């Protein structure tokens, strides 16, 4: 027993070393905590700054503007852009309105044509003017009448071909 104690004492760290070790550990914890706190502060500060930026942009949408504020700001929220687009669309409609167009016709000394002055000619394949299409028609709902899932019917070869096609499509889509 005495021998063991002696052996332990022989390999035991000196007190000053143990002290340094403890100090090192504590310092490491402190520095780590400081780094984490720093990173946290940095991230939260940036998040707060971005948050404020977003809030300021939101205020532009639903809040009030000062008369002397700078109108030529670079960043404009989508909603404000939509408002401007709607306004410009109306302005364009005014410029092409019936009354304005009639005035332009008058300025150009043009007269509306009368029925007996029109000459009609036969144009094979002529498609008459179609009414406006502002958007595509809704996609038809395809109801799969088959009760068996296609996965249970395809062969191994078909499955491989399908996978190859999907992969090729995937890469073609991600291409810039």
């Amino acid at each position: 027993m005495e021998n063991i104690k002696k052996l332990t004492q022989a390999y035991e760290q000196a007190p000053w070393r143990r002290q340094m070790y403890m100090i090192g550990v504590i310092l490491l914890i402190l520095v780590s905590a400081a780094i984490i706190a720093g990173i946290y502060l940095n991230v939260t500060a940036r998040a707060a700054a971005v948050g404020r930026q977003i809030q300021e942009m939101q205020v532009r949408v639903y809040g009030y503007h000062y008369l002397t504020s700078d109108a030529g700001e670079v960043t404009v929220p989508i909603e404000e852009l939509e408002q401007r687009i709607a306004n410009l669309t109306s302005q364009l409609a005014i410029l092409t309105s019936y009354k304005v167009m009639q005035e332009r016709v008058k300025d150009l000394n043009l007269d509306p044509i009368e029925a007996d002055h029109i000459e009609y000619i036969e144009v094979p394949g002529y498609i008459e003017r179609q009414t406006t299409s502002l958007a595509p028609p809704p996609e038809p709902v395809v109801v799969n009448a088959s009760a068996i899932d296609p996965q249970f019917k395809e062969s191994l070869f078909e499955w491989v071909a399908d996978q190859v096609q999907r992969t090729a499509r995937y890469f073609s889509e991600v291409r810039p």
Partner: protein
Amino acid sequence: MRRYMAGQVVSAGRIRRKPPARETPDIPYSANEKAGQNLTGWRFNLLGILFLLAGAMIIIQLVRLQFSPERSEFVSQGELYSRTLHIFYPPRGDIYDRWGRLLAGSTLVYEVGAQVDNVENADTISFAISKVLSGHPEYDYPEYSDEIFSVIHRAEISGTAYVQLADFVTPEELAQLQDWARNYANLPDVDYGEAGRPSLDGLVYRPRLQRYYPENELGANVLGFVNREGTGMFGVEAEFNDLLAGAPLSVWMSLDPYQVTEIPQLKSGADLVLTIDREIQAAAEDVLNNALEESGADGGVILVMDPNTGEMLAIASTPRLNPNEYWNYANVFTDNTPYNRAVSQDYEPGSVFKVLTMAAALDDGAVTPDTEFVDTGSIQLGGITIRNWDWGAWGPQNMQGCLSHSLNVCLTWVATELGAGQFYRYMQNFGFGRTTGMDLAGEAPGRLKLPGDTDWFEAELGTNSFGQGIAVTPIQMVMAISSVANGKGEMMMPHVMRSMVRDGFQYTPTPQVIGKPISAETAHTLTELLARSLEGESSDALIDGYRVAGKTGTAEIATPTGYSTSETNASFVGWGPVDNPRFLVYVWLEKPQSSPWGSIVAAPVFADMVERLVVLMDIPPDGVLQGLADH
């Protein structure tokens, strides 16, 4: 207890040896050190207890607050300051004509107000706003400046944060205010006396969209308008208000920058594509204006329909309001005048109704085109004597003659041959006595008295057969006659909404057939009869190169003292080209002054309208079509 004294020599191994655990070293302390140590320990203990107490009290208070009756109040106050409620209105959907020309869109306007705490000089603000907005119809009155000043003053006293001073301010007016504000901001910093430094500080604005109609009065009776509260009134705006307006969203916006609330992606209102053709609408309004000027009529309607689909290509009605200045509504529509006579005003149509009486009789087999009737100038029915428009006797007539000369006596006889039961069954099948279901707000149902009604008498059968004693709207007439005009006997639902654009897709409903009151054969026969009638009479409704069918109508107007002979409703209904009908035109002039007769005042209006229509619709003359077919 063992002690090692200085100078005592011991082996190193003995010194390092750890003393037994039970042996506590007796450390010598002086009395002062002990006292100081006790004092320090006492102070630390006290401090610790104080901190402990403070902590405990905080915890107790926190727990108490959680269960206190004021908790909900504190929570609501906290929420009040941490977020604000905003209602987001989606942009109203646009309205287009059938070719995609914008009829109703949106434009930017501004709300101008004052943030009261930031106001430096209320006098300057009231002066500037009243001057800049002096051209604005809503703010063009002398007291406006004083009103602004008093509003700001009252807000300052009451502690109100924000007050609205003007709305619907145009971009040009706002630009002027901004110029004023910049000029005031650049003034030199000197003493301005009691009036204070002129400044527009505190004046703020907020942009928003307002409904705008680029065509002004054009098609106004169809479109309706959007009022100050953003609600659609009359016409398409009222009928499709929910679709156009979209669904507003209320959102609590957090003030905490870490919890920024996203502005919701609003589902904007649906866009509508109308069946109306802007050019045809403009032509119809122009023709109607000319007709009113020439005839001196009180009002009028011109309807243009595609009888194959029920699509309304034009609906012209008087009076018309510029929807951009909807506040003039009360000045324009006086004496209960409806916003759109075509759908909201019923009247006795007169002889144009004979088309339907004859259609019913031909379809039922009560008469054929060759059936002969000897007109003696009068007929007795239900105790009253019915006479022709000219009080004359026209002798033997076939059905074409009856229609050509518009003989009341003949049509009364035709109705009696048909029988009251069948006659009214046909009229109900034609849709009279109820609304058509057309997609325009404010439709009137008219009135069709039926046998069995307390106010129906046998004589009604006779008067109804030539369009008197029955109340119909022009749109009901157009719907009923579409069954004859399209040559298929199918009565088409009149409509103005061609398609709707929503969520990125354009939905186009198929034209609706309301019913088939007559057969295709009857429709063809009657069209031929009416075309020949016009040709036989050398009517003013005829157009060079195009064969059209039609019928005039002159109806006496009912007054509290009986029917007026001096005031009439003059009408004309016609369609063409007869071989391939593309249009159905209905003309109604109320109380024309130049002549009471439909054949004189309404028939030329039809011809004028069709002359423009064939150009606008690219309809070649019959001869050209025949030539191409032969080729």
